[in-house]
């Protein structure tokens, strides 16, 4: 590290802990703090606006959640105590966020990853059982940010006679336009295909705890040796939240991948109820064709084109039910 480069540097956040952030600047990683002004929304005194040191009149807001996430491009500078501190977050290209599950009247936004090229929702064939409603939430959230999605199915070595059921679901998602990759970290199935997709891009694994996100990463990048847990310690089919913080891992074949901790719930954030249908690609051709046009909620309204499409088999009824669940929740 050259001391001359200690002025203002641009980097990417690759890992964050409770009080510090690991920022990759050029080829090395630095541990940085965060300037408190990033948490606050300040209002300045109108007097003497051109003064070099403006007087803060009021603190308008204070973000409870961390404003910096893995994948953020940031500006790092020296702070007064000689530490390195993030002083600015550059505008994000995109982000995957959910509603903060913490109890409270005000629902904060919790950003999971930012500036990614791909989102890879990971679901296991079994242990834990795939919840397709959760996948639909990821898909809607990614669609709202126009992030391409690739569905990754892990633990295909556990496939049994109930596979036909799973196959039908996956075929449905493929028909909609979402690519699906079947993988097994144990047997190495699908790794070449996955390497080809991830190469040269920044992607993020998301999904429930115990589906095998970290195991997949360990299988992709041999020798990485990230800590993995086992499913079913007393609670059958449930993960143990072994990964507790998001971390960006550079891949030897090019590109980076963000391994995120498993989530139990994924409530949509900052989406308008009227816009949700737009984020279901198979529903888009029918939007505006309803009797009540843009006022149609596609629930019980007469002359609804989307409901008709479901009845005619053009839209999967399970996806339609996911849509109804989402609009009732928002």
């Amino acid at each position, binding site marked *: 590290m050259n001391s001359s480069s200690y002025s203002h540097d641009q980097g990417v956040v690759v890992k964050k802990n409770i009080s510090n952030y690991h920022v990759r600047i050029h080829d090395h990683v630095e541990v940085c703090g965060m300037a408190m002004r990033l948490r606050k929304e300040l209002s300045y005194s109108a007097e003497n606006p051109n003064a070099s040191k403006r007087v803060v009149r009021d603190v308008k807001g204070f973000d409870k959640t961390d404003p910096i996430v893995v994948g953020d491009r940031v500006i790092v500078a020296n702070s007064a105590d000689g530490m390195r501190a993030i002083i600015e977050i550059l505008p994000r290209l995109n982000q995957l966020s959910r509603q903060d599950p913490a109890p409270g009247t005000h629902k904060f936004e919790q950003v999971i990853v930012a500036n990614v090229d791909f989102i890879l929702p990971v679901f296991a064939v079994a242990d834990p059982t795939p919840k397709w409603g959760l996948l639909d939430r990821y898909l809607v959230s990614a669609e709202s940010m126009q992030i391409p999605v690739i569905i990754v199915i892990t633990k295909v070595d556990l496939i049994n006679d109930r596979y036909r059921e799973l196959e039908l679901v996956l075929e449905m998602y493929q028909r909609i336009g979402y690519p699906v990759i079947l993988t097994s970290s144990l047997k190495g199935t699908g790794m070449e295909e996955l390497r080809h997709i991830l190469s040269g891009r920044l992607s993020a694994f998301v999904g429930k705890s115990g589906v095998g996100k970290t195991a997949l990463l360990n299988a992709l990048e041999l020798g990485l040796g990230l800590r993995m847990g086992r499913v079913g310690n007393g609670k059958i089919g449930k993960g143990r939240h072994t990964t507790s913080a998001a971390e960006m891992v550079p891949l030897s074949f090019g590109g980076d991948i963000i391994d995120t901790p498993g989530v139990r719930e994924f409530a949509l954030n900052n989406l308008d109820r009227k816009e949700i249908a737009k984020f279901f690609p198979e529903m888009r051709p029918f939007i505006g064709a309803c009797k009540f046009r843009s006022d149609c909620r596609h629930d*019980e309204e007469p002359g609804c084109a989307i*409901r*008709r499409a479901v*009845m005619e088999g053009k*839209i999967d*009824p399970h996806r*339609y039910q996911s849509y109804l669940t989402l609009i009732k929740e928002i």
Partner: protein
Amino acid sequence: MNSSYSPIEGNSKSYKTKNKWHASRIKRSDGSEAGFLCCHCHAYVSSAEFLSRVHNRNHCPYCLWSRHLDLYDPGDRLSACKSTMMPIGLTVKFIAKKYGEGFGELMLVHSCSDCGHHSINRIAADDDSDLLLELFEASIRLKSNERRLLKLEGIEVLNGSQKKLVQAQLIRY
């Protein structure tokens, strides 16, 4: 087919005009379904099992109308049609040894008023017996082509010769 009994007629009107979203299903504070307002006669129907003696309340006991909500299996709630289902007759579902040899369970036959889908449903303990008998009488006059269509779907609507069976079954309830 309209029921004369409507316990919360005033309430049902206010529900309808205020917010149709909440008009059809009424929930308890824990989120479970307490009941619903009939989409045909607008009477409040309780989902309580001790009243109906069935696990899933399917139709209004006062007018016997139902809604097209299920698609593949009973209770899956996957149908997007959601239209009203008119009771068109009675049939018998034969379940091995449940009510003795050769004796089946009396079932209601519903027809969707929008898409024409047919379904058979269990009669609940609190269903209006007079209305069920009226329905049976009316179903005798069901058109032959409709009977044929139902038969193709495996539903055989009871005819006039089975009146005694219907009466015997309805006394049970």
